[in-house]
């Protein structure tokens, strides 16, 4: 229910983004007049049964949903419903029967965003599972305990502040170093490269190593990350200054 605009008036163009000259507006108004004179009269009415035809065509249509797929996704959480909403959005995008381009673009965007999010989550989950399995398998390796003992001076007391000492448990790769020489301070070492390095084994005793690695590995997110076993002792503290992990207070 709106008021029809009626015949064109030149003052309708007042306030346009561009200022037009009066002569130009007059020419444009003449064109508008031609259109209006040539346009069929307002008395044209649809045929009598038009409403019935439309309602009959709607009979097979499902009841329209309130806000379509977007509200459906927001209101009804759940994987099945999420998939259904994506399906609905895709149907809107594919359906070319007069839907506004903006609606179709929004539907496509929704589908792409959901797919991207799903792909990201799947990737993260796969990495997480893979990392966890690898971590567990490393944890089970008993090799580190064989390596550390000869190198750790037994006389050094446990008084050395753990915060300044490198973690004996870290970065020792049993095969390469054979001792705590390979232990690195997280802040000084580059990224480790040997993923097969043992985790806690470089310490004198496995129990102590766990604690030591926690204390000194501030820069590394997990003990396993620092077990690069890069083999380069540069930048490493002297072995003699290394705290003796075996005497780390429990």
């Amino acid at each position, binding site marked *: *229910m*709106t*008021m*029809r*605009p009626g015949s*064109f008036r030149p003052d*309708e*163009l*007042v*306030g*346009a*983004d*561009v200022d*037009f000259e009066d002569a*130009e*507006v007059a*020419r*444009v*108004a*003449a*064109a*508008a*007049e*031609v*259109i*209006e*004179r*040539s*346009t*069929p*009269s*307002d*008395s*044209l*009415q*649809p*045929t*009598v049964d*038009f*409403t019935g*035809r*439309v*309602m009959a*065509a*709607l009979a097979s*249509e499902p*009841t*329209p*949903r*309130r*806000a*379509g797929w977007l*509200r459906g996704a927001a209101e009804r959480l759940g994987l099945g419903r999420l998939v259904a909403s994506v399906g609905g959005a895709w149907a809107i995008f594919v359906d070319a*029967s*007069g*839907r506004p381009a903006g*609606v179709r673009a929004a539907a496509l965007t929704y589908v792409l965003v959901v797919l991207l999010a799903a792909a990201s989550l799947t990737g993260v989950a796969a990495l997480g599972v893979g990392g966890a399995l690898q971590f567990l398998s490393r944890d089970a390796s008993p090799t580190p305990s064989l390596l550390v003992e000869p190198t750790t001076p037994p006389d050094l007391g446990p008084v050395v502040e753990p915060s300044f000492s490198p973690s004996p448990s870290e970065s020792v790769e049993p095969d390469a170093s054979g001792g705590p020489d390979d232990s690195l301070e997280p802040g000084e070492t580059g990224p480790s490269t040997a993923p097969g390095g043992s985790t806690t084994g470089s310490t004198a005793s496995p129990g102590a190593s766990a604690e030591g690695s926690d204390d000194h590995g501030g820069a590394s997110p997990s003990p396993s990350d620092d077990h690069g076993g890069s083999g380069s002792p540069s930048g490493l503290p002297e072995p003699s200054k290394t705290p003796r992990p075996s005497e780390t207070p429990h």
Partner: protein
Amino acid sequence: MSLGDRQAPVDDAVVVRSVLDGDRDAFRILVDREGPAVVRACYRVLGDLTAAEDVAQEAFVTAYRSLGTWRAEGPFGAWLARIAVRLAIRQAGRHRTVAWVSPVAGPQGEVVDPTTTLRADAASDPERLALRGERHRTVRQAVAGLAEPYREVVALRFFGERSLGEIAMLTGRPLGTVKTHLHRGLARLRGHLEELEP
């Protein structure tokens, strides 16, 4: 009491809400109310009453399916007119229909079959009728040949009977921009319509 039983005019938003709540018959109010304007708009684009009613029906069905997306920020009829004009322009691009005579309302306002009118008037002034049909066709083709966004603005203003404010709201463009588009659209049309000027 169903919404359709009411005698007083019902607000567009109330009707739409009722349809969305499952009262399909409430949509009849909108069809009754907006049908003539929608058919007229389609007819002005297509020049054929049968084709215009077909496209108008398609516009109503499309609007019904998308009813949940109508935001009630403007008249329902304006939203519907945009759908109808778009569909009609698309249809006009598919089939070049030629209508030589415009339907005319009878003395009591009833619909008169165009072919009957043609037969009745043909005896008196067939040349005039043919000229009128030709003018209409020239205007339709000129408007249909405009580039967007000029075509949509001109079609909605003159065929869809929408104000520039409504067009601005429908298209999401500033009113000043819509005015500029209308001006430029008419300026481009002028070359095609010059021969029709009095």
